[in-house]
């Protein structure tokens, strides 16, 4: 599967996503979410998103180990605070990028 055409990958994700969205609407009455899975699903977004964010922030591409001087770390901390206080996607992106650019520019 290493040489798979990217469009095949995209089509599989698109079809799979559609199937997930359609699932209960198509099979209403016949399909039931097991209670345990329903409880587990609540925690999927938080754990997956955190698992995506943290490595992307602390590691630099092609470099082993955590570089604590990486300007992405303070930028992400500030952006996280902004997201928490404002719940605004736009402000989170703007402040996060702004802090990163400022740190890169002044070489802090």
């Amino acid at each position, binding site marked *: *599967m290493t040489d798979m055409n990217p469009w095949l990958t995209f089509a599989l994700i698109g079809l799979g996503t559609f199937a997930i969205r359609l699932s209960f609407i198509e099979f209403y009455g016949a399909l039931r979410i097991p209670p345990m899975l329903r409880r587990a699903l609540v925690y999927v977004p938080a*754990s997956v998103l955190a*698992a995506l964010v943290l490595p992307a922030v602390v590691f630099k591409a092609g470099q082993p180990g955590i570089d604590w001087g990486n300007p992405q770390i303070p930028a992400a901390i500030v952006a996280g605070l902004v997201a928490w206080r404002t719940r605004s996607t736009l402000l989170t992106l703007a402040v996060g990028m702004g802090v990163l650019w400022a740190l890169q520019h002044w070489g802090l």
Partner: protein
Amino acid sequence: MHSKSAMHAFTEGVRAVLPLMTGMLPFGLITGVTAIGMGMSPLDAMGMTLLFYSGSAQMVVLQLMQSGALPLTMVVTALVINLRFLMYSAALAPHLSDLPRRKTWPLSYLLSDQSFALCSLKFGAGSLGRSAFPYYLGTALPMWLGWNLAVLAGVYLGTGIPESWSLGFAIPLSFLALLVPGIRNPAMLGAAVTGGALAVLAHDLPYNLGLLVASLGGVISGLTFEQLRKGAPVAAEAP
């Protein structure tokens, strides 16, 4: 008479969704810019956008492409990210499943976090009856149109942006903007902290398996926290 009330429900849906679109548009713009920044062609970027209609899945795939992950990892991770639609589908099914397939299939494709949030509130509050479908469409169509136009705008802006702008950092930032407001109780915080920490520790596992290990660990830790705090009410996923 019926078409008039349908039109009314549709307009009501549109009016409800418009304020929510302000959060989606910059995300779409960044998605388009990022896709181009990763070296995708405008055609690939828009094809992906239309096929997925899911910004978080798209950002995940872009990030995984950047780190050279296997296609299988991309498919599994994107679908795990989209598992939340299972809950949305289950919640809306009692109100929409009576419709013919020519309506249920398109409406399923159009299902988004925002439409779900608005419709689950509206459907739960009182019976819209046959107006449920037009109301749903009113929330879903502007979202779909806005999302695709925002990504398209990003695709065209993206071609002119130099690499020194570090726009790749917009991906984790956009996940952060989704993650933080979604944490509504200590169990969810536990899931996020565990998921994030495990992902850093398991970073060197091959094929981006660390992501799956961490996600699973996060979910288990969320359930464990929930169990420990038993008795305290657990907030629903819906915003």
